[in-house]
């Protein structure tokens, strides 16, 4: 007994000395090159990533594309060579793919199917003179710049767009003419440059440059990485098209079907019903009336009732719009701001609600003090909740936060309404599960409780493979101390709640050859019944061999 005990102790110590247990492989992919193909094409490509040993297959989201593995993958598990076939009738678009390996299923990356002329970097010889064209290139090392020569006729306008298909790569485009200089007759001189139309969180980092050429001749377009970034994952499409390609709306995309607090979400005419369907009582399904505000100083100030939307545009710097809001009784209300065209950081709408005496009672500007309480920090929020203590005519004031910025696209829509308790944003993570037999993985669901919603929300996991079960679990809650000097945070943030479902595989659970798509369904309970799902997410799940460690 003693000897066994000593042995066990030695084993434990040895294990400790050996450091951490071997890290579980986590297959990930970063790029595919070439990054695009045409309908009917068949081409070889390399997918790069990590932990890609024993790749089994490539799966595409949607139909029209197939891939077969070519030869052995790299020893380091960093590359998979594939042959991709694009069916002739495949519509142009962006297609997501994953690699299935013995270590599980990877994340997804994109491959484009393009209808127009497509050429790989290495196949570009001499000057390009036919447009449109898409060149697929890659900046292999830091400091690399890819140069493409163009033959242009005077008066031509071309649009150049460098598209990165991976978040790690931020391309830039510069256009040069070989006009030389007194110092260097071969010098290329920059005539236009774009890193991206606007660098701001949520916006694309693709570069877009539109240029009208006033002289015929040869020009050079250079693609580079921001601040000389480069590497094997820095692949891009350079799209060159005739004419002016419209500047993107500079509108951050929404990350979910329903987004509660983004300036760019649509406040639809059915907003009240939409909210009711997310847990409301069903008594608030009133239509929204639309109003227009007047410029500050106008003789006549319009009056709106709630629920109602006030719409307008701030076309001149310093312009302020006002409208009166008639409230029949004391109540809890909300104002939500939508920026259908220009949005942050160009248009930063400040909305203030003033009581009849002119005092501000609420604003969409959330103010708090910094941690040492020395100065104020201000943030504009798309939704503000507040309680109105008395009936009366209040004033809603709308303007841009600066005194200098304005434009025809500075359009706002402000919805003023009664509060509707409901579930706001729903998040489900992770986006793939590689589950060893005999092991478990958490699946987290978080919901935002909006406007005093106190009801129940259910989470179902459907389509689980044999040997895998889902069980409710408690997670160790994060300690979130309240912010010092945090201001009226409750006006601008929902109550967030998180739950965990544990996915558990029995030791003898059959291993997966291909991922099973499980469905996570989140529903709200209203009047004792489940209503239509608030969120549904399909997640690929693979059961892997039992880990020996």
């Amino acid at each position, binding site marked *: 007994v003693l000897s066994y005990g000593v042995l066990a102790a030695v084993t434990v110590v040895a294990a400790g000395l050996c450091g951490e247990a071997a890290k579980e492989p986590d297959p990930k992919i970063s790029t595919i090159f070439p990054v695009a193909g045409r309908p009917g094409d068949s081409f070889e490509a390399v997918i790069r990533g990590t932990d890609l040993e024993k790749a089994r297959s490539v799966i595409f989201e949607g139909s029209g594309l197939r891939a077969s593995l070519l030869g052995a993958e790299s020893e380091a598990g960093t590359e998979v060579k594939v042959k991709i076939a694009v069916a002739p009738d495949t519509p142009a678009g962006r297609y997501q793919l994953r690699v299935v390996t013995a270590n599980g299923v990877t994340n997804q990356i994109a491959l484009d199917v393009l209808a127009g002329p497509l050429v790989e970097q290495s196949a570009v010889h001499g000057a390009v003179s036919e447009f449109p064209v898409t060149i697929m290139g890659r900046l292999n*090392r*830091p*400091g*690399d*710049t890819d140069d493409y020569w163009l033959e242009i006729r005077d008066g031509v306008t071309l649009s150049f767009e460098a598209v990165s298909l991976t978040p790690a790569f931020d391309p830039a485009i510069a256009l040069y003419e070989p006009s030389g*200089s*007194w*110092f*260097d007759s071969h*010098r290329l*001189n*920059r005539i236009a*440059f774009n*890193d991206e139309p*606007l*660098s*701001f*969180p949520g916006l694309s980092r693709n570069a877009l440059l539109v240029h009208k050429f006033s002289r015929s001749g040869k020009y050079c377009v250079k693609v*580079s*990485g*921001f*601040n*000389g*970034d*480069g590497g094997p994952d820095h692949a891009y499409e350079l799209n060159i098209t005739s004419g002016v390609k419209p500047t993107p709306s500079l509108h951050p995309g929404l990350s979910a079907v329903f987004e509660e607090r983004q300036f760019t979400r649509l406040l639809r005419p059915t907003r009240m019903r939409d909210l009711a369907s997310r847990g409301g009582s069903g008594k608030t399904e009133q239509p929204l009336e639309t109003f227009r505000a007047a410029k500050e100083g106008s003789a006549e100030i319009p009056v709106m009732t709630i629920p109602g939307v006030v719409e307008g545009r701030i076309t001149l710097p*310093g312009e*302020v719009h006002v409208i009166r809001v008639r409230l029949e009784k004391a109540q809890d209300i909300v104002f939500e701001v939508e920026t259908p065209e220009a949005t*942050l*950081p*160009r248009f*930063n709408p*400040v909305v*203030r609600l003033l009581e009849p005496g002119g*005092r*501000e009672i609420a*604003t969409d*500007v*959330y*103010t*708090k*003090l910094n941690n040492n309480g020395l*100065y*104020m*920090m*201000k*943030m*504009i929020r798309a939704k503000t909740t507040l309680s109105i203590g008395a009936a009366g005519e209040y004033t809603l004031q709308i*303007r841009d*936060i*600066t*005194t*200098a*910025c304005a434009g025809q696209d500075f359009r706002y829509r402000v919805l003023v309404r009664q509060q509707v308790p409901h579930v706001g944003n729903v998040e489900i993570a992770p986006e793939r599960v590689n589950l060893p037999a005999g092991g478990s993985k958490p699946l987290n669901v978080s919901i935002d409780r909006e406007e005093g919603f106190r009801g129940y929300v259910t989470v179902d996991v459907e389509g689980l493979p044999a040997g895998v079960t889902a069980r409710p679990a408690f997670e160790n809650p994060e300690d979130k101390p309240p912010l010092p*000097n945090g*201001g*009226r945070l409750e006006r601008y943030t929902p109550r967030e709640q998180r739950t965990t479902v544990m996915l558990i595989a029995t030791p003898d659970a059959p291993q997966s050859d291909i991922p099973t798509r499980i469905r996570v369904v989140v529903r709200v309970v209203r009047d004792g019944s489940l209503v239509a799902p608030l969120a549904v997410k399909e997640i690929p799940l693979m059961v892997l061999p039992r880990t020996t460690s």
Partner: protein
Amino acid sequence: MSARLLIVLAAAQVLSAGSRPFEFGRDIGGILTRKGCNSATCHGGVKGRGGFKLSPAALYPKEDYEWIVKGGTYQVLTAEVAGERKPRIDLRNPQQSLLLLKPTMEVPHGGGRRFEPGSAEYRAILEWIRAGAPMGLEPAADNKISRLELLPNLVTLEAQSMARLQVKVHFHDGRVEDFGEQAAYKSNDPDVVSVDENGMLQAKRIGETAIVVRAAGQVGSATVGVIGAPVVPYPPLDRVNFIDDLVYDKLQHFRIPPSPRASDSEFLRRVCLDLAGILPPPQRVREFLASRDPNKREKLIDKLIGSPEFVDYWTFRFEDVFRVAVFSNGIQPKWSRMYDEWVRENVATNKPYDQVARERLAAEGYDGPTRHFLPYDVIGPPGETMAEEVRVFMGRRLDCAQCHNHPYENWSQDQFWGLAAFFQRTFKMGDTGNEYVIFEHPLDEDMGNAEVNGNLKMYHPRTKVELKPTLLDGTVIKPSARENPRKALAEWLVRHPFFAEAAVNRIWSYFFGRGLVDPVDDFRSTNPPTHPELLARLADDFRTHNHDLRRLMRLIVTSRTYQTSGRTWPSNREDRTNYSHAQPRPLDAEVLLDAISDVTGVPEIFGTAVSASAEATAQAPYGTRAIQLGEPDVFYSRFLEVYGRPNRLTVPERNGHANLTEAMHMLAGPAYNGKIGNSAGRLQRFLKAGKTDAEIIDEFYLAAFTRFPEKSEMAGIRNLIAIAPDRETAWKEFVWAVLCSREFAENH
């Protein structure tokens, strides 16, 4: 009439200086000024000294009187007096007054002995205390001192001669009084001219300096030049524009002959480096030297101004002044790049400089110039932001006045905070650190302030009075509630005479190595311009020509003054300030590195790694020049650090002083030795191509020095190569010697 008033009047009668009634500020304050007691290094300093505070040069006599008569310990950050107030005079036993015991060292005094017991100063103070220490007459509130005048203001002294300065104080009512006996005198360069405490000047050696005088709370200066023997005959002067008129007039006055016109090679090298930051290639040097075109210099200047290299170089110059750097622009590389693109566009389009200033000062929103309001990750404190704008656009350093009235200048703490108040409502909107929008917080809107008991108001740090945006002349600006007050500040600033003066002075300094006022951002009455009329004419010309920087540069480089040789006569060799000959200037780190790369034919590689062994995650595109790098905190270069590339965390002051590390770098650094030995470099290409010794020497001389070698140089070098045991090594040493020479490392 009260008995007390009778006593005061009687005392004033006793103390009166001749026909003039007694004034504490003048009669006692004057002694304290003359003896240096209220100088910045003594009790006139920020904190006073030993708890005893006096105003600089008796600027605030009433306050000085209180500190002496009532006593007490001064505190910097509040107007409250610390501790018990114990008078520094003793009315019952006047000779035991601290005000007498300290400066006579009868009790220990950190400031040493300032005057002897029984001296005139001692007796004057003693009599004043005996008379009851009255304040005496005070100037009427509406009859303050308007200015200090020194006569003569421009003094020319023959060698070893003497002269006396007169100090006149002008009052608002037109009265002018002599303050010579209540003034403190100081020479900025006692080796040229010394001055005693009576204002007597003594010429020491040929040169020029300023005499600084402090009196009655004011500061003034006079320029004193010591001239040499008459130059006979004085050389004929070739004048191109008013710059030459004004420079030559002064040279003639000071009997300094200008050097001859620069040779073509001198001019070519100088103008290329000054306008484009780049050496001319050998072929261009050959063409220029061979050209017989009498207008070739003007034609070259027109080619260079606006050339792509010009845009690169002046973008680099203004990146320095405007502080383009990741850490100075919100710690977001994208933002410093946005800001940099704005700077580049200004240069490329030759945007009028007043417009540049307006855009930067009044910037709102999310575009390039707004990023300069975000040093590190926060909105800079209003005082610091204002002081930087004033320094950049008005050439004045107001920083000292943040804590106290400026010790050497007529800037008061009130003026400082009045200007700072223009920036009090500048806010950033945003949360996560990469989305900040700059805006002006309206005065009449709460915008959530009440929720955190926030206060938009700003208070004077000492008096606690609420601050209003106030221009230097005291005009209070009252913008409407939603108006950006910085717009009004910008409009005032670009119209103020200081703006154009500061701009032309800064540009002038880039072409001559020093400003007409130097340092370029330290205009003050105690640092007068060497050529005040020239400064005024240049500023006027700049203003009336739409603040056109390119035009200003053209005016400067076409002048005969700019095109003067660096070769000297014995009679002008000592001149450093009058432009009688070109002064050699060390190349800036970036320009020097680019020049080394050009001469060796080996471009520099700039990576993000901070050591040679570390792997760079990013690298500037091959062929990027050092002046094109943009921010100094993205790409690392040991060479640039050693040779003084500023980090731009403050407004850079490049001094170009050599240091030991530079010498080590020359001996063993890769920028020299790696490039010289590079197989793709100019030397190896020449050797492989079988060029003759003379061809190789010519090419390197043309590339590095913009000239052909002298016959003696050619012969000497060929001889060294011929006797060397290893020809390639000998050539490498030759190139190394070229690159390490002063002729190469300086613009001359």
